[in-house]
């Protein structure tokens, strides 16, 4: 015991060093860890807002039909009635914000329709599929079919789907 207190000065120095280190650590921690870290868990609470702040690309069907009621009316009762507008027309949130500057591009039916309706064994059996060349040659799909309501054909014979 006597020897321990004989070295009291050394112990005080080590203790002072530890205390100084602790102060520096606490200072740096307060400086570097954001205020909102750990409010909800081991993450920055502000990251929720960051994720929420991204801009929209797709306006959503409910926004489209605010103006395009005629298309909604045309599709009523048809097989394409429930499909979102932007499924075929692409993301159009900018068009919905300012219709004058950004216009929708009319999709090429020869490319668009076959993405869903070209024959493919992996598709569900009951889903209407055709061999585009055999079914229509080089004719565009919209020559005979109405895209928004494919059940109501533009005159002529309804060849129907092969599968």
């Amino acid at each position, binding site marked *: 015991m006597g020897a321990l207190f004989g070295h009291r000065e050394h112990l005080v120095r080590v203790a002072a060093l530890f205390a100084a280190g602790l102060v520096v650590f606490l200072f740096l921690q307060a400086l570097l860890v954001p*205020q*909102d*870290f750990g*409010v*909800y*868990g*081991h*993450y*920055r*609470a*502000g*990251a*929720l*807002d*960051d*994720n*929420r*702040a*991204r*801009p*929209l*690309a*797709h306006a*959503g*069907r409910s926004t489209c039909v605010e103006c395009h009621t005629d298309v909604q009316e045309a599709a009523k009762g048809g097989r*394409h009635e*429930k*499909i*979102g507008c*932007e*499924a075929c027309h*692409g*993301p159009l949130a900018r068009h919905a914000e300012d219709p004058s500057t950004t216009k929708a591009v009319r999709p090429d039916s020869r490319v668009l329709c*076959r*993405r*869903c309706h*070209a*024959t*493919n*064994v*992996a*598709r*569900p059996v009951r*889903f209407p599929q055709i061999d585009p060349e055999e079914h229509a040659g080089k004719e565009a799909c919209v020559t005979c079919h109405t895209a928004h309501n494919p059940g109501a054909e533009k005159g002529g014979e309804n060849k129907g789907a092969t599968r």
Partner: protein
Amino acid sequence: MSPDRRDFLARSGKLLILTGAAQVAFDSLLSGEPERAPNYRTSDHWWAMIIDVEKCIGCGNCVRACKEENDVPREPFYFRTWVERYHVPGGLSEQPQVDSPNGGYDGFEEKYPPGDGSKSFFVPKLCNQCSNSPCVQVCPVGATFDSPDGVVLVDRKYCLGCRYCVHACPYGCRFIDPRTRTVDKCSLCYHRITRGLTTACCETCPTGARQLGDLKNPRDPIHEYLRTHKVQVLKPQMATGSKTYYNGLDGSVR
């Protein structure tokens, strides 16, 4: 040792502890609620996704819409969601042939002849929004986390790009964005669902093969769906608590 010094140490120790506690309490008071969107409370939602394999036609709308909505690099191998085609010769689940040309971005050209005695189907994949996610557990800095409404999100400002989570995810749902060198993954369109919209993939799915659901909303049709369908999650043996439920999932799907 004089009693005075002992008393002093005890007092200052108590003071230190109390100040720390007061600071924690004060911090949480100052930071307030994260909900700045007026009508959205994270505690009222618990998001999930339903994938109906029997409805998927492999058109790739979801892949294209997701890349547009979330600014995902257009090159192949960067996907927040993608579609796989399974081809199971002879219906034997052990040896499926799986392909996913460009993640299904351009749709699927017919590849297998019809009537060869095999079964084929499409399986859309995305982050499973696990409630016990391996990726969250391995993140060393708290840059990926479970949000209070059940979505696994990434904090881009905090991500180091260490790739631990990319390795940890059993579903291969994460990638490193080559522009920011931080990790990215499906956020279940968090910016959309918190504004009352559905995800971009659900919005553009023509057959309703994908449906967003809120398990905390008693009026959400997801409850009826889960009651009336035989659903399965991917890799249930991993015990990830996946909240992406597949209807009509084949045993060959990995």
